[in-house]
């Protein structure tokens, strides 16, 4: 076990993947000498050389498209998108090629690509640096989509994503890069209970309400569980980890016990992951639900500038308010509830 930052944990996971398989190559803007704008690839070009850690021209469609070509050639590219907002120029190559090539060729061509996307807000950046585009990818069949919430998962899941023969969009909560945590470097391609990448995790067990999240808000949800417990409410926090497919059995088991579900994410409310989780859990547990699933999300707005971003981002209070709403508590003030 070693304590390390979230960012360092990804770096260590990438290093393991590069060591393990000579076909693993990293591609992206500024990832070489600079080590990436977040220093996630720090030192890797120096140690593995410019053909393993490749600074590319400034063109995201180009990066994605050439990575696909490298995959045809037997490589296992790990693409870094510098910030969430810059993934859109590559959207066509991701949606029409990366996601579809294995299906198109009836299994002949595998695209074991990992697309690393630092995502989410809260770092005081200008526009396009704080997007939460995960729902676009979760709605794209052929992709696997994961989001990590802590250094251990970051370390293990990046290796699992790279080892996956399916393309994986790997979301990293950039505002947590400097958070520290214990990392067992023995947990790599498989965890104690098998792959962690596809498996939702009960982060805090509880009895009254199921609180589901992923990525950057997981920490806020953990705080919410503590705060709620001070008020006598027992919150079960689930870290989805995989956003496509969602590991519903874990959420279902929890909601059958609690009868109440809150889902929190930074992305816009309409058509976000929360809608999918709410709809699927309602289908699976309708007769166990005591209350409609509650969504605590960003608003349906473009990401706002940094002086007001704290209004947009669900914080501890809004998540607690969501928990109250799920409990049908009268002090709830922001509900989009029946009858209002």
């Amino acid at each position, binding site marked *: 076990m070693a304590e390390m930052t979230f960012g360092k944990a990804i770096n260590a996971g990438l290093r393991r993947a590069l060591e393990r398989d000579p076909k693993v190559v990293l591609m992206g803007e500024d990832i070489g000498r600079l080590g990436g704008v977040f220093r996630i690839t720090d030192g890797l070009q120096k140690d593995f050389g410019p053909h393993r850690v490749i600074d590319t021209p400034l063109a995201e469609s180009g990066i994605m498209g050439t990575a696909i070509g*490298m995959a045809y050639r037997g490589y296992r590219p790990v693409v870094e998108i510098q910030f969430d907002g810059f993934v859109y120029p590559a959207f066509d190559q991701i949606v029409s090629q990366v996601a579809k090539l294995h299906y198109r060729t009836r299994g002949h061509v595998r695209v074991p690509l990992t697309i690393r996307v630092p995502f989410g807000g809260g770092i005081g950046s200008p526009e396009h640096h704080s997007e939460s585009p995960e729902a676009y990818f979760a709605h794209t069949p052929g992709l696997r989509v994961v989001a990590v919430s802590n250094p251990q998962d970051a370390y293990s899941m990046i290796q699992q994503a790279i080892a996956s023969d399916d393309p994986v969009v790997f979301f990293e909560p950039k505002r947590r890069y400097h958070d520290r945590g214990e990392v067992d470097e023995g947990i790599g391609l498989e965890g104690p209970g098998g792959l962690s990448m596809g498996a939702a995790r009960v982060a805090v067990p509880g009895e009254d309400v199921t609180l589901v999240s992923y990525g950057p808000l997981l920490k806020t949800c953990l705080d919410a569980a503590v705060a709620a417990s001070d008020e006598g409410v027992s919150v079960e926090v689930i870290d989805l980890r995989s956003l496509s497919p969602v590991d519903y059995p874990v959420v279902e088991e929890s909601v059958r016990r609690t009868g109440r579900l809150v889902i929190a994410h930074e992305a816009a409310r309409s058509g976000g992951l929360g809608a999918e989780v709410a709809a699927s859990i309602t289908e699976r547990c309708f007769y166990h639900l005591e209350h409609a699933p509650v969504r605590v999300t960003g608003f349906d707005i473009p990401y706002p500038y940094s002086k007001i971003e704290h209004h947009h981002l669900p914080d501890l209070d809004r998540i607690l308010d969501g928990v109250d709403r799920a409990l049908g508590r009268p002090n709830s003030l922001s509900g989009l509830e029946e009858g209002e």
Partner: protein
Amino acid sequence: MTTGPGGEPVQLLTPRGERLADARYDGYLADVDGDAGAEVLEGLYEDLVVVRRIDAEATALQRQGELALWPPFLGQEAAQIGSGRALREDDFVFSSYRENAVAYCRGVDVGDMMRVWRGCANAGWDPFSVNMAPTQVIIGAQTLHATGYAMGIQFDGADSAAITYFGDGATSQGDLNESMVFAASFQAPVVFFCQNNQWAISEPVGLQAHVPVAHRAPGFGIPSVRVDGNDVLACLAVTREALERARSGNGPSFIEAVTYRMGPHTTADDPTRYRDANELEDWRERDPISRLEAHLDSRGLLDEGLRGRVRAKADDVAARLREETVHMPDPPASAVFEHVYTGPNSELDRQRDHYGLYLAGLEAGHGHGHAAAEREGAQ
């Protein structure tokens, strides 16, 4: 940009079939010009005739309702055969949808070639069995795959090359231009082969490119050549030169093959809505097959023996194509769910299982059966 002596596209065979000497390119046709040249020329002739026959047969099959769609390459045979026959087996091709004559050169089975157009698959063949990526519909997308593949060749220290085919319309897409950036930057062993057939559906090339297409590449640091795309020898020679450049570590090349789409964009298109019959007439005179025939004739090779052999081969291929197409089995429902992922996927597997139950129920007479009845009625 390299052109012929008069600034015209490089031409090694005139429309009348005369072989023009060329200081730069003759070296690339030593086999054609040498003693065993007859065999090479006859091979090319056979290819041209056979692929034209494939094209005609596919068009006919579409008219007969056996194919859903077909993108004819009529008129573009020389560009595709000339370049396709320059390739080595370990080279890799990334084409668009119109390069079925190239696919023929790669050894793609003619039945597999029809699979996509009959609606029986999204890709007709195993790309790794013929080293050719599947049909690409998204204009320009494949050019990046070729460049990435070529980067992989380079990292592997191999001496093969990638070649990518695309149309004049594709030159407007960001992806093609980004491909040239990457190819130049990494000096990747990739050949950009543009078939400028003058039209992108109804849009003339002048709308895409204000200057000749081949001008584009040098601005990226990529040498280019403008070649007569209806001259199979010239296409062969310039592609060989480009491949040699790639293999010897001298980076990418760009070829503009000036040709013409004699048919509609696809069988769903009606070109009389947008183009002039005269244009078609002009280009008919530059037909790639008559040109090679004239040349063969001038070398005394075009006898009834050759004609007969080639015709027999074309008949044979066309018959096989038809046979394989009309008897292609409809894929089973289960194919819908296969190969989305390489392994299990909890959500999709659940959908598959439920749909299986649903179909089984319908089969057993449960459910409603309206739609199924309708479909049956329609057949």
